[in-house]
């Protein structure tokens, strides 16, 4: 498997404040990477730097060897990186299907036909378990539905790399599990590489291959979910919040994998 994304010495300063300080990590093709850290740790800034929403102050971001730091969000999208928003931003005057179809059409830089765009939209809606009925409006969607719509729009652009921003904020436990499974399914079925930014560590640990933990703009730990969850620095950062639940989830993952493996046989 090749390298999808290569981040080196990435730095973002806002005036005198350094939000992201010379961070670097690699992302293999087909991997799900969890980018975690408490509020203000710089994970959203990192996310926005990769998505083109912010220009880096220094350092490089390479997508399959090509420098993308400083490109516009539109250009980044056309190169195959799609993002979701932490707070969903649906186009409320359009139907659900139109929301996703326009993403398919413009995400492909208008190089596909309208019927192809609508077909891709239906496919993305099916994948995210949303209705493909052309008359359904956005207004009826709840928090979980809007999150799915964000995901459907991003997927319709047919990305190679999906940036999922705090997909689980505002969801209940069952919805969180479903959303985590959905990302896992997307990777398995479509081979899409995923960076998942989240500050709730719990359910994320069950799905991601690897974690990068940020604090105060610096990487404090990188590795397998089990490793980072027991890393003293990570525990300290999360202490008193959900360090315990992280460890429970990781334990749950091992048990779940064993059970899943048995069921598959």
């Amino acid at each position: 498997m090749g390298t999808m994304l290569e981040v080196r010495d990435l730095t973002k300063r806002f005036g005198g404040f350094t939000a992201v300080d010379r961070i670097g990590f690699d992302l293999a093709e087909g991997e799900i990477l969890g980018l975690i850290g408490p509020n203000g740790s710089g994970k959203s800034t990192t996310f926005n730097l990769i998505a083109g929403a912010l220009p880096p102050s220094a350092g490089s971001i390479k997508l399959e060897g090509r420098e993308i730091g400083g490109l516009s969000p539109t250009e980044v999208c056309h190169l195959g990186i799609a993002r979701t928003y932490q707070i969903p931003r649906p186009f409320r005057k359009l139907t659900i299907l139109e929301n996703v179809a326009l993403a398919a059409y413009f995400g492909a830089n208008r190089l596909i036909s309208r019927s192809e765009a609508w077909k891709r939209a239906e496919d993305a809606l099916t994948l995210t378990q949303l209705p493909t009925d052309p008359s359904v409006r956005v207004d009826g969607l709840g928090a979980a539905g809007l999150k799915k719509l964000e995901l459907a729009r991003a997927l319709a652009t047919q990305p190679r790399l999906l940036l999922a921003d705090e997909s689980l904020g505002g969801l209940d436990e069952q919805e969180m599990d479903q959303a985590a499974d959905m990302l896992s399914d997307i990777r398995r079925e479509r081979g899409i590489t995923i960076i998942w930014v989240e500050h709730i560590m719990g359910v994320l640990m069950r799905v991601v291959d690897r974690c990068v933990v940020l604090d105060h703009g610096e990487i404090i730990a990188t590795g397998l979910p089990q490793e980072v969850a027991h890393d003293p620095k990570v525990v300290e950062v999360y202490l008193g919040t959900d360090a315990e639940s992280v460890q429970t989830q990781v334990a749950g993952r091992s048990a779940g994998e064993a059970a899943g493996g048995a069921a598959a046989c």
Partner: protein
Amino acid sequence: MDASTSRNLTILKGAGLAAILAFPLLGFSDYVLHIAISILLWGFVYTGWSVMGRFGLVSLGHGAFLGIGAYGTTMLWNLAGLTPWIGIPLSVLASAILGLLIGLPCFRFRITGHYFALVTLALTEVARLLIVALRDTTGGSLGVTPVGVVSPEDPVSLYALQFASKTVWFYIIVGVWLVGLLIWRAVDRSMMRYAMEAISQEEDAAASLGVHVTRTKLTVTVISAAMTAFGGAVYGQYQQYINPETVSGIAISLQIVFAVIAGGMFVQLGPTVGAVITLLLGEGLRLGFGHEFHGLDVTVYGLMLVLFIIYMPRGVLGKAVEVMAARGSRPGTPSPQPGE
């Protein structure tokens, strides 16, 4: 829309168009014909405004585009002897370029909403003041008349695009108006419409989904500016008289916005209905109160604009379509509920 509704609509459109085409044959006075021509011509201009206005790009600067179209064509004819067949395209081009020049910085630096309205408001006043200031060439506030070449003996000049007959003008302007409706529909049915809807609601999200935000906004702005300038040029040719107040400045820009809001900017014929409302209102007030209450029409426009924005933001025709759609769907099945 099912097949029979669609067929009925086609029949209705055909009948409406036939009625319009038969209108000059019914022996109305020149005055009535003039009102009809004015409605269609302004209907075209308003349609041009709504091509961008419907997406929240509220321009108060369309007086500038109108002025460039009208004065450009007339000045080229009067001073350089250039036929309107060349003068009109040049003026339209100049207006499109101005649309680009004003749009590019606005869209790059995200000047939207009220601020965009203010920038464009300044533009229209600059255009009016320029016309007044250059009075040696433009005739200033007194206005200007394209050098006439037609007379009762020789009523038609294709070269000068001057026609003595109102009937001829009627048919020309019906054509112009129809082209305007077709452009509106083409935009309405294009993917650009989805892009603009997306941009007007969530610009960042649209950009991150691959929409070229600035380019798309500029495209609708240029289409709108070009249509408006074309309308201004035709207006000058038809009226054979233009002045800074009638084709430029704040008053005409506001009138355009009011008409489109009153008629409805989200339906194809909305701006035309707006033209019917403003023209008939203007004429009614003028005939009813004469010139004693100069400025009364503008006062009434202002008052009605407030009422429309509060109570009927989709305009008269928009509201009518809404009511009919609600009636049509009542006996049917309830609309499907979105799942989660």
